[in-house]
């Protein structure tokens, strides 16, 4: 038993690093009042350490802490994505102008991010309903505070109250569903649940439970119709936190969704194909409808937005739809497409948020109309933003195209033609609002000031760090595919 615990601790190194850094940040915050971003650097260092710790975990496929969490390539893959995005979020935060008035509390900010990262790490690896819920709440509670961090801002305040009410109710619904599952299967362990359910006749209660859990996770993913918080919260939150919510926590929730549904609610039918269990609820169709609704609503509503954060909020709702398409197809191919999408989405969406943040800093505008003529004042960043947007649209030769290609491919191969058609049409719609940004930047002359704007090297370096993968992965993505190929191993699943 103690040996098991010791082994488990050995597998828990990255999380421990994070917890340690969390503590160090608190201490550092007390000791070094002047060094405002010290917490940030500490977190950054710990995240980089985590990154290396994950590389040590490659190939391990086991479970830890009495089947509470799994350390398997699948979770490592997602944790790598989370760490990368976490690093960028920290870098963004250091430049975020909105946070400057709160610099005496900035240590808390990084501490909360560290907590959130920890929660998300646990989300992607937990194999127990209780653990899942705890990780989920850890992430949520930290994010509630982060959203309201710029508390003098009235928008931030409003978004935080909305977020916490919405989040609490959603997680309440989810845990209610979990309690029903627990009652029916007699266990909180997802493998045991799966085993118990595979012999089960269809039961309406079970279906309701699945729906309730979907509602909870769907809240995190911002999946229609559980997305309503997203636009308001994204708009109100500080930019870096918006990026964190739109990218990192969304990906973590998708990973959790995949693990839960793959392990517990998917069995094997007579022909050896994967099938949903028990047969009471067609949750693949349900998710497909949600995905379609997300794509439709996200893209169409985004057409009308002028605030870039709000526009990106809707756009990320739409992207949640694309991602869920991969879950719907129920195959390893679909899951690998989701992983690829997540990887690509990370860079292009973070890039877009970063640019929006930079422009908010420099031009103090979040309005797309306010972007007029930026292409002539800051050509490099404007071109970069255009490339990110093009990538989000899904045009080659960018990463976004490859991501869409694989998602669409998986869906076509599994026969979800109608879903792909919806996705295709909505991709066309998405062109409008993405290209509108580029249009305003390049097709109009600058109004008022026309001086060129310079960005420091640090900024340029971050832009390049984000831009390079978007372009390179658009034409050469073999390494990512290799990575995914090796990461498609989930503990306890053949």
């Amino acid at each position, binding site marked *: 038993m103690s040996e098991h615990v010791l082994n488990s601790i050995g597998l828990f190194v990255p999380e421990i690093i994070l917890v340690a850094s969390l503590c160090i940040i608190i201490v550092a915050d007390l000791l070094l009042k002047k060094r405002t971003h010290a917490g940030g650097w500490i977190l950054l260092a710990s995240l980089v350490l985590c990154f290396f710790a994950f590389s040590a975990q490659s190939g391990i496929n086991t479970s830890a802490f009495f089947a509470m969490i799994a350390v398997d390539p699948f979770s490592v893959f997602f944790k790598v994505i989370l760490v990368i995005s976490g690093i960028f979020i920290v870098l963004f935060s250091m430049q975020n102008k909105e946070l400057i008035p709160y610099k005496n509390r900035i240590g808390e900010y990084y501490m909360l991010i560290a907590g959130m990262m920890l929660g998300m790490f646990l989300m992607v690896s937990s194999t127990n309903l209780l653990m899942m819920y705890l990780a989920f709440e850890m992430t949520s509670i930290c994010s509630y505070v982060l959203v309201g961090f710029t508390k003098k801002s009235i928008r931030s305040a409003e978004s935080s109250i909305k977020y916490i009410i919405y989040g609490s109710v959603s997680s309440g619904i989810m845990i209610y569903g979990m309690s029903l599952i627990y009652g029916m299967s007699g266990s909180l362990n997802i493998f045991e649940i799966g085993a118990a359910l595979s012999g089960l006749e269809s039961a309406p209660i079970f279906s309701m439970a699945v729906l309730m859990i979907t509602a909870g996770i769907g809240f995190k993913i911002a999946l229609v119709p559980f997305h309503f918080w997203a636009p308001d919260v994204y708009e109100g939150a500080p930019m870096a936190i918006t990026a964190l919510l739109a990218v990192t926590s969304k990906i973590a929730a998708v990973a959790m969704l995949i693990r839960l549904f793959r392990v517990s609610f998917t069995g094997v039918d007579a022909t050896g194909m994967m099938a949903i269990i028990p047969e009471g609820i067609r949750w693949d169709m349900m998710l497909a409808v949600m995905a379609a609704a997300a794509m439709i609503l996200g893209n169409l509503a985004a057409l009308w937005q002028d605030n870039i954060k709000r526009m990106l909020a809707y756009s990320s709702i739409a992207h949640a739809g694309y991602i869920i398409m991969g879950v719907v197809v129920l195959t390893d191919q679909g899951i690998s497409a989701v992983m690829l999408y997540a990887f690509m989405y990370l860079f292009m969406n973070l890039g877009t948020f970063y640019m929006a943040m930079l422009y908010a800093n420099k031009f103090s505008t979040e309005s797309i109309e306010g972007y007029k003529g930026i292409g002539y004042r800051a050509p490099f960043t404007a071109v970069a933003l255009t490339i990110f947007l*093009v990538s989000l649209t899904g045009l080659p030769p960018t990463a976004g195209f490859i991501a869409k290609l694989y998602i669409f*491919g998986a869906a076509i191969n599994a026969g979800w033609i109608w879903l792909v058609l919806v996705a295709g049409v909505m991709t066309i719609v998405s062109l409008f609002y993405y*290209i509108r940004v*580029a249009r305003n930047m390049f097709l109009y002359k600058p109004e008022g000031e026309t001086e060129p704007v310079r960005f420091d090297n640090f900024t340029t370096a971050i832009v390049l760090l984000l831009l390079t993968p978007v372009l390179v992965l658009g034409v050469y993505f073999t390494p990512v*595919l290799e990575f995914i190929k090796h990461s498609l191993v989930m503990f306890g699943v053949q």
Partner: protein
Amino acid sequence: MELQFLGIGILTWILFLPIAGLIIILLIPGDKLKAIRITATAITGIQVILAAVIFRHFDRAIEGINSIEGFQFVEKYRWITVEAVPWFGRIEINYFLGIDGLSVLMVILTALIGFIGAISSWTIKKQVKGYFALYMLLVTGMMGVFVALDFFLFFIFWEVMLLPMYFLIGIWGGPRREYAAIKFFLYTFVGGILMMLVMLALYFSVAVPDPETGEMYHTFNILHMMNPAYYVEGSILAGVDTTWRYVAWMALFINFAIKIPLFPFHTWLPDAHVEAPTPISVILAGVLLKLGTYGLLRISFPIFPDATMYFMIFMAVLGMISIIYGAFCALAQDDFKKLIAYSSISHMGIVVIGIAALNTQGMVGGVLQMFNHGIITAVLFLMVGVVYDRTGKRGLYDFGGLANQMPKYTGIAMIGLFAALGLPGLNGFVSELFSFLGAFEAYRWIAIVSVFGIIITAGYILWTLQRVFLGNTPEHLTSLKDLTTREMVCFVPLIILIILLGVYPAPAIELMNTSLSYLTQIVTVPAY
């Protein structure tokens, strides 16, 4: 046939030279206009030389179309390869270039028009650096579509063109450039999505054995997609004459019809042509429209011979409508550029009825018409550009009596206009002749109706000629200067080609004859 330089094949050179140019241009400071212009011109000039080398070494007797042995200057490398994916087998995407009789003429056309466009771009005054950078990207995109034999690669190049084109129209265009640019983008993007879906469906339907291990894997290789034996049993596009194959053909067709553009998918074209700056109009009409018909011939016809046979009358009818409709619309225009834009619709309709005939004359006529129309319409747009640069106007009513004022210009314009009219002795006639002959053999009445399009064509061309060049020179035009040397450099090679191919088209026809008659054969006499 292999031609290499520094160990890199000639097609890669011709394809990626503009990218090198793009990088060089980005490194040149933005205020060194001349250096930027010369770089762009030199790069496209080298492309023309390479195209000439290809023309020289191209073996006219090899068939191409559906076997790799038939292609020339082939370059095939593994690009994306992931071995032994547990749930999928192998993922493989190839960097696969090659040309046959169908594409060689298009490669030459692209190089030539790209060069002419670069020279005529010297008149661009604002944001020169950005302009030429996008221009270079555009040229690579066009060239790529014509040389790619891997569907994935084809698709990437196909879509790569969109964004540069959007900005080239949107930033450097006329007053309604924004509208025109987004309209162009929208239409072609819709088509692109459709093509992407079909591409994926084909990808999952086709599996080929590895020559060494015998392992089956999916492929984007266009040539493999033409072989019915490679279709996986029970996959979505397997079989013959299935609904899904018809649907896929239709989706591809819509994509290509938008590019061509065929009635009723044509409305982006007048706007885009009118608003685009002159060199971009030249590229648009000269090369971009050909991508549509090229795509039909390279992809739709050989991959879906059954559906092609099923839909060919439908295609021919659309071609016929385009001919007549485009001509009538041209007749109603009072904007010079719009007139030429509609004439393009009409002339591309001739290509479509030619290739829809599915016989050798029609095919040869259609492809030759693609080339010829590229040349002729380039002359016409350059012609409008000349007066537009000088006066800022392009309404037909804004001009008159230019024959007195600009004799050289008038002479060249007349040759261009008469070539568009299909005057024998100029190249337009030859290709129209063969297209009509082919169409007549296949569908008598469609061809007969289409022939009346040439009467209307005569109407609008002569009307333009009379309106713009003849009559008395109005007061405000008496200060117009005749063509400059740079403009002559643009025009002369094109005019020479117009006359040369009009008098003796055999060299061009020989280039493609073998491939096209083979293509006809594999479509009409399918392998299954």
